[in-house]
């Protein structure tokens, strides 16, 4: 579904992403892990068109999307949720999702209809499926952090993506919230036949749901495969030595 | 065309340039550090001119009178700037840029009318200080001594400012504040003081320029708008926040104005704004600014 080949990106001589090759199969749940500064965010930005790669290709379902404009890539089926919550703070929860549906259904050219009347059912359904049904009328900026993250997810889902990129979906969450988020993610992924690619620092999460793990270190992929293989990889152990997070039975 | 005529035009352009440079550098400085475009900079300039005139009325134009008045005016405007920053700007820092811009515009309105109220709507003038009266003939062109003085003083003062900014500890902090205010805050530096200092210095420069321009130009209402427009254009050409950009921007602007008028008599109005528009379209960060 998602094929990244020989991707390179440098910033003023600093190689942020170096010769990255990564393939995520359809409906697979894959994780990219690595220490801070390894290049995970840069990689995501390269996939979603936020940054232009110096060389290499990104293919979605066989189609080349390398360096296309972000809004085009979204339309082609890549959704993204952000690490820092990136929602429309002045709109209500309902209006947030509704706006996403409006855009997805290309209603942006509609100068005449009444925006609040459109896609109400779909919006309500999506809110219910991510557990925000009761918060529909809350102004997004006043939501709790956990709820904002849920809304993040909702916004990404409204564009009906095939591939969902998640930037640290459980960052800053308590154990309970993490557990709920993960359950939600698994449920959504299977309901909508999504391909997931996420980055995480919480290794528990990663080993719980990832079917494939790629380890990024200083811009390079140093390990790539099934969780058990990655956990036992010598190189990976060396990189994480002292962190101890990989050592989990 | 006679060489002396061309030389005269060139010197005229340079004089304009150096004046503008003094004023524009204050504007550019504030933008570089505070990310603020101060429309009221021209108003400070005008107040400086009026204050200088006022001081001369009190002190009587003795030999040193002019210089005392100039110092008085510059300090006066510096204090004004400090008060404005402390009372008003402080509360606007976190908010949208629009509010800051509008505040400076409110200042323009208020200060403009305050000047009219205090000093009337007529033209006021100040005579050239005796030590600099008279002129010199260079390359067949008559240059007033005072103009030559300005051509030296202008860049000297600004250059001094540049030295401070780049070679001293204080200057380094200011430049750091330019990069990342929050980080500096976290490091314990008193960012508020830096901002205040910058703003006061910038206002001082504006007041100083206003005072120094009085022997050459009459003091009238509307001079605030006239100068801020030109300072604006200069800073855009050179690049907001760049010191050398402001310098070269002034030089270019001065010569363009000086020689442009020969080619197109109605040059100034249309073409300076067209120039500004072209720069903003083609290279918004100016000649020396940092790409956004």
């Amino acid at each position, binding site marked *: 579904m998602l094929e990244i080949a020989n991707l390179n990106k440098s910033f003023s001589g600093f190689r942020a992403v170096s010769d990255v090759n990564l393939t995520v199969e359809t409906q697979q749940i894959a994780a990219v892990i690595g220490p801070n500064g390894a290049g995970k965010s840069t990689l995501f930005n390269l996939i979603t068109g936020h940054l232009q790669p110096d060389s290499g290709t990104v293919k979605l379902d066989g189609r080349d999307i390398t360096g296309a404009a972000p809004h085009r890539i979204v339309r082609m089926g890549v959704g*993204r949720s952000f690490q820092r919550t*990136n929602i429309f703070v002045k709109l209500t929860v309902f209006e947030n999702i509704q706006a996403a549906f409006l855009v997805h259904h290309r209603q942006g050219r509609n100068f*005449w209809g*009444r925006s609040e009347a459109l896609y109400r059912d779909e919006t309500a359904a999506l809110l219910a499926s991510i557990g925000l049904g009761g918060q529909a009328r809350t102004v997004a900026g006043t939501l709790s952090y956990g709820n904002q993250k849920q809304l993040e997810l909702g916004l990404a889902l409204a*564009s009906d993506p095939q591939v969902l990129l998640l930037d640290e979906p459980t960052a800053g969450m308590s154990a309970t919230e993490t557990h709920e988020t993960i359950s939600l993610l698994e449920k959504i992924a299977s309901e909508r036949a999504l391909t997931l690619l996420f980055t995480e620092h919480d290794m528990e999460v990663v080993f719980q749901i990832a079917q494939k793990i790629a380890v990024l270190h200083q811009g390079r992929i140093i390990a790539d495969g099934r969780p058990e293989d990655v956990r036992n990889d010598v190189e990976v152990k060396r990189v994480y030595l002292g962190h101890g997070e990989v050592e989990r039975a | 065309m006679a060489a002396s005529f061309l030389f005269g035009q060139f010197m005229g352009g340079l004089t304009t340039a150096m004046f503008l440079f003094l004023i524009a550098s204050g504007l550019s400085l504030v933008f570089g550090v505070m990310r603020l475009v101060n429309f009221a900079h021209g108003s400070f300039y005008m107040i400086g001119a009026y204050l200088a005139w006022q001081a001369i009325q009190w002190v009587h134009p003795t030999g040193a009178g002019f210089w005392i008045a100039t110092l008085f005016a510059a300090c006066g405007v510096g204090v004004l700037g400090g008060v404005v920053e402390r009372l008003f700007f402080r509360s606007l820092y976190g908010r949208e840029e629009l509010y800051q811009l*509008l*505040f400076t515009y409110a200042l323009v*309105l208020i200060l403009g009318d305050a000047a009219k109220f205090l000093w009337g709507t007529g033209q006021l003038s100040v005579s050239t200080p005796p030590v600099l009266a008279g002129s010199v003939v260079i390359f067949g062109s008559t240059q007033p001594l005072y103009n030559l003085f300005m051509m030296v003083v202008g860049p000297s003062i600004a250059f001094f400012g540049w030295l401070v900014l780049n070679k001293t500890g204080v200057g380094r902090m200011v430049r750091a504040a330019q990069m990342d205010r929050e980080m500096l805050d976290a490091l314990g530096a008193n960012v508020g003081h830096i901002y205040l200092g910058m703003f006061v210095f910038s206002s001082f420069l504006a007041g100083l320029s206003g005072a120094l321009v009085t022997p050459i130009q009459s003091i009238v209402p509307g001079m605030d708008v006239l100068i801020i427009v030109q300072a604006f254009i200069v800073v855009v050409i050179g690049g907001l926040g760049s010191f050398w950009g402001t310098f070269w921007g002034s030089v270019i602007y001065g010569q363009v104005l000086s020689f442009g008028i020969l080619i197109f008599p109605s040059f100034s109005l*249309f073409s300076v704004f067209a120039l500004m528009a072209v720069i903003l379209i083609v290279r918004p960060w100016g000649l020396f600014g940092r790409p956004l």
Partner: protein
Amino acid sequence: MNIGRRIPWTLIVFLAFATIPWMGSRYNVFLAEQIAIDALFAVSLNLLLGSTGLVSFGHVAYFGVGAYICAILMKTYELPFFIAFPAAGVGTALFALVSGFFCVRLIKLYFAMLTLAFSQIVWAIVYKWNDVTGGDQGLPEIPFPNLDWMNSVPFLSDLKVNDQFYLFSLAIIAVALAILHRIVRSPFGRVLTTIRDNPERAAFLGINVRAYQLAAFVVAGTFAGFAGALYGIFSRGVFADYVFWSKSAEVMIMTILGGMDFFWGPPVGALALVWLNQEITDYTEYWPFVLGTILLFLLFVFPGGIVGGLNALWLRVRARSRARA
């Protein structure tokens, strides 16, 4: 808006305005027309400011272009209103398209400066192009549109031409405001709001942010042009100082004074500012000082403007009565 969903405020206000020729003096009609035209001008600016988050300091350029096109076509070429007026709209739209294309590529501050530069270029051209625009003399005595058809209507036949034109332009403005209201409420308008709120996120929903900003710019400019065209006829002439940038500042203050987060904020601001101007200039020539002070007040005490303040008050009253219940 939460206030008065039951009461048809807009209809009441419109009717009130419509009856002024019979109820008030000639001066009242003059004021009312000024307010109405400024209201349209301000609402068009708010499409940029409040809806899309684009801060334009040069909006008067489009007002002026519209005014001059209509005036030149009607006076110099003696074309009828029903050709000149739409032509003014089209001409302004084209100008907005070209200038907007360059402006929306820039971020906030530089966007504002380029709009200012374009606006002053328009002013400079208008000021200098004597043959076409009348230069600093302007174009006085723009003819009224042919309103003879009004004489066949019972109520309207005994009105003077001035008053007839007032009602005529009031109707046009009402239609224009209705269209703008529709646009703001539409999905397009909703997209603009997301752009104002979080442009990055908007792009990640699949929106070409620049294209929408340009569209908003063109729509806003066109309606400003219509306002300008009406203004030229209303004030019996178009002059270069209509296009000076201080007018851009005034209309922006009007918009914020009324409240830029509400559709009817700018018209309220227009009413307040025109009325204030009229009152104050009777006593003192220091109107800029007063304007500056109003602006200070707005910035530091009432950033939500009049309608924003009223809305906040209403919400508090409602919350209190709910708490009691």
